[in-house]
């Protein structure tokens, strides 16, 4: 398994829909994963991941999350710590779907532009990934296979599946 190693000047900003709002994208992902045999799944919630590389400090990345990337009403955000989070059995899974570096990332380009326009240092690069938080018992290989057949295409995506907090 590969936990992403983050250099000092790479920040991953995680933006999630707050728990009180209906997550229609999560519901769609839930249905697709069930079709692929993850029958014990109870819920899927979604979010976006923004990987920003360049000269931004942690404070500036925080500011970008707050002012530019996170909706003040519906979303919450955090900087994803570089260290892996502690495990919690097989009941919760964190799935990150990133475009491979060879594939151009339109959203990433918009984000880099918006950060620069917001008065922060222009990032050297920005990439956007999808985050799926799975609630339900499963085996990692099973999750990986189901994701590769529904939410991601191994030809263009890099998928990272880790056990997660509830």
């Amino acid at each position, binding site marked *: 398994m590969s936990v992403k190693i983050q250099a000092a000047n790479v920040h991953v900003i995680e933006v999630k829909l707050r728990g009180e709002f209906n997550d229609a994208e999560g519901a769609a992902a839930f249905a697709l994963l069930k079709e692929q045999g993850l029958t014990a799944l109870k819920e899927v919630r979604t979010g976006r991941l923004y990987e920003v590389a360049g000269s931004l400090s942690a404070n500036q990345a925080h500011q970008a999350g707050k002012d530019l990337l996170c909706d003040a009403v519906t979303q919450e955000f955090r900087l994803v710590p570089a260290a892996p989070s502690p495990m919690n059995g097989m009941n919760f899974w964190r799935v990150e779907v990133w475009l491979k570096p060879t594939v*151009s990332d339109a959203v990433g380009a918009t984000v880099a532009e918006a950060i620069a326009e917001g008065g922060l240092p222009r990032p050297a690069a920005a990439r956007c990934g999808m985050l799926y938080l799975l609630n339900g018992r499963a085996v990692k290989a099973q999750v990986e296979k189901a994701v590769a057949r529904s939410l991601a295409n191994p*030809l*263009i995506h890099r998928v990272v599946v880790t056990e997660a907090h509830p």
Partner: protein
Amino acid sequence: MSQLAETSEDLFPILGKPAKELRALGDARHLSLSDPEWAAIQAHFKALKREPSLAEVETIAQTWSEHCKHKTFTSPIRYTEGRKTRTIKNLFAETIVAATEAVKKPWCLSLFKDNAGVVAFGKKWALAFKVETHNHPSALEPYGGAATGVGGVVRDILGVGLGAKPILNTDTFCFGRPDYKGALPEGAHHPTRTLRGVVAGVRDYGNRMGIPTAGGGIWFDDDYRLNPLVFCGTVGIMPQWAVKKEVKPGDLIVAVGGRTGRDGLHGATFSSANLGADAPSSAVQIGHAIQEKRVLDALLAARDKKLYGSVTDCGAGGFSSAIGELGADCGALVRLENVPLKATDLDSWEIWLSESQERMVLAVPPKSLKALEAVFASEGCELAVLGEFTKTGRLVVMHHERTIVDLDMKFLHKGLPRVEREAVWTAPPAGKAAGGAAKKAGDALREMVGHLNVCSREWVIRQYDHEVQGGTVVKPLQGVRHDGPGDACVIWPHAATGDMEDFSCFAVGHGLNPDYGRIDPYYMALAAVDEALRNLTCVGADPARAALLDNFCWASPEDPRQLGALVRAAEGCAAAAKGFGAPFISGKDSMFNQSKDEKGKELPIPGTLLISAMAPVPDGRKAVTMDFKGPGNALYLIGRTNDELGGSLYHRVLGRAGGEPPKVNPASAIDGFKSLHAAMARGHVLSAHDLSEGGLALCAAEMGFTGEFGCLLDLDEVPRDPRIYSNETLLFSESPSRILVEVKPENESAFLRQFGKSAKSAMVRRMGQTTANPILKVTGLEGSTILEEPLKELKEAWQAALPKVLG
């Protein structure tokens, strides 16, 4: 100058190498060059007494690819039909082009040469139409493949003449059935996933670009499960002065739009190859619709200021084909160091060949550069001067101090060796259909309305913004509840022309039915043209002004039977064009749509022809929809019914094979269409719907449940071949050229007057009436009721089929 390729890693030594070795070298780079092509390249460089560079070989391979040169259609073919063998020198020229020249329409402004066909639309405007396929990329990555397919055809429209404004997208797909339960080879996506991804890709790119997606269709057949077909079409509008383009030596080569990265390398050559597990991942891209929207906005603003002399899009082959084409008649000198890059580690040949999306190339007189820069800057769109067009007749590409390409334009564009291929066509044995027991008419009809090939497409259509630009006056979903199956969309392009007083509109319709082609591709082609024109006529478009587009998707032309079927289809297209008096204005073909299935056996797609047709609707306020409008109105059937159940939906539902496919008689068909059009122009027609898959029964059911009125039909009144004694044949035969029409009783005689003599020849006949009770009731030949179905239930079955498999 020719200090070609100083460093040895730039070279690609081929001189003196045997064919086998060259083939291996080519395959390793996905070049898709044949032995005779390698031999021609070898001979060319032997005469020059030097080795080619890698970039030169890549440039030649791209330029000579099936994708760019359409070798199958333009190379000689030895064609054997029965005991007769003849040589076709150039299939394209002898069929589609020859027929178009024969019908000679003065309103055709640009045919076959440019990025799209162009026809006049009134005195001031012109419409450009192009349909492309993006099959292989969509098989690998459905979302990205379909999205970049839309992006590509939109750029074709931006790159036709001096650029047209896209005002309509059409999308037609062929997939395996979404409920396919069989095995699939490693790496292949399930048809359901392909469908969802393709629809989402078309949706996201088209919606973001602000182009209404309002036409198209879907065909399901398990033989498409490994090779789905994705046809993306775009119609654009431009002032007639912008149809002509010209590159002048001394013009600057200016690239606009997205940056260049390692995306989509080998797209052109890849699309000519069999789809295999070793597909290069770089051939797949996601697309950036907003980048393309920026290009669109800036380009059209610059066009109206007349700041450039020519333009083309960067598609397959990237700069190499865009600049190679623009400079074909003069020459070009390119400096790659000026190309804006996404990543800095690209090799020279990669920059030159990259297929990064959302890029266009302009030919700009030096004096206009400053103004052009200002326009693009104001839209936040990047621009770079890459060099200039010359009068050397050579394509020269430099990267810093190195010359990486120095090719004779004539060799590049005319040097492709033509190889003769074998083609064989064997007519199917005549005779009766076999297999499958008959079903009760009601049971068959209920099964047919829920069949995947005719059921409601609402699940798909609602996801497209089919009303952006505010001109969709006849929508793809029609009727009381806005959910019935319209025959074609009618577009009122006021947003583009700025003139809300002018109600000149146009319509776009389609025809496609590979099941007819399984019996005889010649009649498939005729039927497809007929269907497209029927659809246009039904909404009020002028069938005498229809322009056609052909898109052939075929398996390997190296198989003589496949190529024979292709010849047959092309000849059907020619016969249709001449018979209907409708010119082809553009077309495209996609070959090698076959792959190894899970057992390693080649699975070819059925030979598939999509005909797209476009015609003006002189006054959009006179357009007609297909829903019954009220009770007590007369129902007229136009066109003769024959025993033509071969390839029909009825046979598919019964599991029958063989039989006669529908055979079009273009002369009497166009007669009927023109008369109907005249009746519509006078306001005598309440609703009209064409008879296609499922025949009369399905047509009447759809008109009924969409308008929420019933009807009473008498089969004995159907204009028909007198040898037909079967009610089922009259209900379900798919004889072409037929349209069911609703007319107010007080308008009946005026309506019939438009048909002149044909009214007497029983080509049009009153055979029923609408009723308040929403029931489809049919009296059989023997005078008793043979079908009585509540329309509500039929509609429910018709609506439930797709959501059931897609969620």
